[in-house]
Structure formats: structure tokens, C-alpha cells
């Protein structure tokens, strides 16, 4: 419990985490507001009857970049080498002196990342949905009971994405490569989406499968995945990568 409190304190005091928070909240709500105003224009012109059912959710799939940064810096900050003037040390050595059990340390860290990711997802989800409703006014699709599992899916997706980024960075011990690869893969046409053009199996990669939890219509989707299956597939990926990260982390020098 004290290890978890320590990890939460470390996360909260990292400036990059606040950048991640800003990105995670502003990116989806900002894009949702822009897209909603475009949809409003189309509705008032009579070009479309209603705003799409995915308005807001599609944008939350991009906002995941916030928790990706969060998951990466949570562990990459431990491995940053201080300048020679301040001893050239790394925080990981201090952390492991304070919490000698590697597994306990990693568990506490992952829990802190998961808690922060879930909180960020809730705030971002609320901000994005309010942005859509403020901009669209009476044209906004009503929030009903079937939005509850979808919003829960958003939270699950963000937590899994944060933990995936975290697990990959545990393996690389440096933030630039996972950050570059994962941000490049958050783009509108992601690399994983291109892979689905080669093999339908690519639909079961974590980001695509997980998005089925809350996005209803996929452009050119080739495989039907139910929200529950999508969530399970993404959770399985996350668990597998966390296990690999834990094995590597407990077996090698810090």
C-alpha cells in the first residue's frame, strides 16, 4: 500500500504526466467540438438527419495518446540518467532500494498507472461528451442506458492502452521508441489498420480489437468482433505483455 502511495506521488509530481493529462483531455474534447460543429452544419443544411452514433467515441479513441504518454513516462522517468553534476544516478536504483521486491515495485507502478489512466479516461470522457452536447444542442444524440457499457469500454480501453505502453517501456527502458511507435500508430490511418489489409488476423491486435468496445461502425471492417470479445482480446494482450515485462524486469539488472 505504501509502495502504491509512493508510485502515485511520483506520478503526480512528474511534469510530463500533467502534459499527458492535458493532451488526454484536450485532444478528444477539442476534436469532438470541431467534428460536432461540422455535423451541426450538415444537419442545419439538411445534408444529414442526425449526428453519427460514434460522435464523441471516435474522438476518444484518439485521446488515448494521453494515457500512452502517461504509461511511457511513468517508467521511462525511472531510467533517465541524471547529469554528471548531480551524480549521474538513476531513480530506479533509489526506487529498488526503497522497495526491494521487484515484483511488488512493478505491481505498485502498474496499479498507479492503471488508477491514473482510469481517472483520466473518466475526466476525458465527461469532457468530450459535454463538448458534443454543448456544440450540438438539441441535435445531440441522447445519452441512454446503452451508452453506459460503451463509456465503460472507453475507460477499459484507456487503462489497457496505458498498461500496454507501460509494459513496452519496461522492456525498452527508454521512452522515445515506444512513444514514437505508439503515437504514430494512433494516427487516423494506423499501421495496425493497414495490416488488416494483408491479414484479417490483424483485427485482433490490441488497439483495433479494443476499439470495438465503444466504436460501432468501422470503415471497411472485415471481421465482426463483439464489444465483449474485443475487450477480452485487448485485456489478454495487456496481461501477456505485462507478464513478459515482469519476467524481464525481475530477471535482469536494473
Amino acid at each position, binding site marked *: 500500500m505504501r509502495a502504491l502511495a509512493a508510485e502515485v506521488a511520483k506520478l503526480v509530481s512528474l511534469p510530463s504526466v500533467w502534459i499527458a493529462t492535458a493532451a488526454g483531455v484536450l485532444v478528444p474534447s477539442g476534436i469532438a467540438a470541431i*467534428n460536432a460543429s461540422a455535423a451541426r452544419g450538415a444537419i442545419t443544411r439538411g445534408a444529414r438527419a442526425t449526428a453519427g452514433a460514434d460522435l464523441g467515441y471516435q474522438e476518444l479513441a484518439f485521446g488515448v495518446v494521453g494515457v500512452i504518454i502517461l504509461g511511457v513516462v511513468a517508467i521511462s522517468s525511472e531510467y533517465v540518467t541524471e547529469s554528471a553534476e548531480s551524480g549521474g544516478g538513476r531513480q530506479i536504483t533509489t526506487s529498488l532500494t526503497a522497495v526491494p521486491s521487484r515484483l511488488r515495485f512493478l505491481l505498485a507502478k502498474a496499479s498507479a498507472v492503471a488508477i491514473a489512466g482510469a481517472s483520466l479516461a473518466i475526466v476525458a470522457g465527461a469532457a468530450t461528451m459535454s463538448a458534443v452536447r454543448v456544440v450540438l444542442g438539441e441535435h445531440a444524440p441522447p445519452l441512454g442506458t446503452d451508452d453506459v457499457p460503451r463509456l465503460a469500454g472507453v475507460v477499459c480501453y484507456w487503462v489497457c492502452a496505458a498498461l500496454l505502453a507501460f509494459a513496452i517501456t519496461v522492456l525498452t527502458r527508454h521512452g522515445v521508441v515506444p512513444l*514514437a511507435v505508439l503515437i504514430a500508430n494512433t494516427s487516423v490511418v494506423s*499501421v495496425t489498420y493497414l495490416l488488416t489489409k494483408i491479414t484479417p488476423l490483424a483485427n485482433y491486435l490490441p488497439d483495433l480489437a479494443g476499439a470495438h468496445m465503444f466504436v460501432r461502425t468501422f470503415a471497411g471492417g472485415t471481421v465482426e468482433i463483439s464489444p465483449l470479445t474485443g475487450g477480452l482480446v485487448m485485456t489478454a494482450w495487456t496481461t501477456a505483455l505485462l507478464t513478459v515485462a515482469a519476467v524481464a524486469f525481475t530477471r535482469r539488472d536494473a
Partner: protein
Amino acid sequence: MTAVTPPVTRSHGREAARALAAELSKLVSLPATWLTLGGTLAANPILAIAFTNAARHGPTGPRSAPDVGLTSIAYVQAGFVVLGVLAACSEYEGGQIRTTLTAMPRRSLQFAAKHLAVAIVALPAAAITAASGVVLAAGALGGTAAPTTAGHVVRTLSGAAAYLALWTLIGVAVGALVRQTLPAVVAVLGYLFIAGPLLRAQASAARYLPDSAGSAMWSSVDGGAVAPARGALLVSAWTIGLIAVALLGYRRRDN
């Protein structure tokens, strides 16, 4: 009476040449430079093959080898941006910048030498990246590729290489402004992969932004883009503008 010897001064040309040599030596001795370039050059053929496969099974008709082979540029540009950011930010990891500025007190000169050194390393790598994608696509498409002219191939290849080199320089400028690797990488890649494409979808003025204008240099897919030559001019202007802003900050700030 002893004869007074005049103080030995370096000519400006000699000083610039030595600054460039120093910056090049720093850049090529950085393992991160070679790891980034190696990773990018290795990732590009994989992506190029994926795109070629997608193009063969895609609904759109036959496409020419440069069109298909250069599609991966939109992704591997991440590697070049990271190279630029690392070149700038490595100075600030561990205080190397103080040694650098003791040896080269003229900041503008040092800054220009840094950018030139990065361009010298990035341009051949960019050319190899672009060419390897097109060669792979041409080989894989074989007879099914749409016919193309030599002029088109040369224009798109040189456009892609110049585009990647310019974005590397933008990476250097942003890195020099931000001074920390991760935030700089997040800023540039967040713009390139998330903000840029979304802006392009919403506002027509976005075609003058460096990513959309730049993609006109090598991609013939985007509809409504600026002409290739204007795109090249626009990206160059953006790059020079960003370098100027970074230089202003560099001259005025403490290190």
C-alpha cells in the same frame, strides 16, 4: 624592444568549417543516431511491402510504383523527426551544451553548423529510405503497376527525400526550443500524426501547414493539395521560420 606578434585569429570561413566538423563528429559518434536511422531503414521495407500488398488488393485501380512505394513515408517520417530531436536534445543531457558553447561561443554559428550537420546525415538516409520503398514496390507490383515516367519517379523521389530532410530539421529546431527529448518528440509527432491529419479533414487552410504542404512534394494521392513546387517552398519557409524562432530563443536564453 620585442616584436609584438599579432594575435592569431581564425578566419570566419575556417571557424565555420571547424564548427561543422565538430557538429558532424558529435552527431556520428552518438549511438542514438545510428540506432534511429537503422530502425527507420529497417521499418520502411516492412511498411512498403504492407502498402504494396494493400494496394494490390485495394479497390482503387492500378497505381504506379512511386505512388505505392512512397506511402510508407508518412509513417517513417517519425524516425527522422526523432533523429532531429535527439541531435538537438542530446546537448542538454548531462550539460554537454556548456562544453559546446565554451568551444564555439558564437551561438548562431554553432546553431547553423548543427542544422547543417544533421541535414548532411539525414539527406542520404532519406534518399535511401525513399528509393528502397519505390524499388520494393516496383519489384512486387511487377507488370500490374500503372505506367509512369522517369520524370515523375525522379520528382517524387527527390521530393520525398527533401521532405524527410526538412522534417528532420524541424525536429532539430523544436528540440532546441523544448530542450527535453520526450516532450519534443510528443509535440512534433502529436502534430504530425494526430493534430495535422484532423485539421486537414476540417479546414481547407490546413493545406498550407507543413505536413499537408509537404506531402504534396511526394504524394499524388491527396486531392486538393498545393502544387509540389509550392509545397516545397511552403515547407522550406516553415522550417526556416521555426529555425529562426529556435535561434532567437537559443541566443537569448541561459543554458
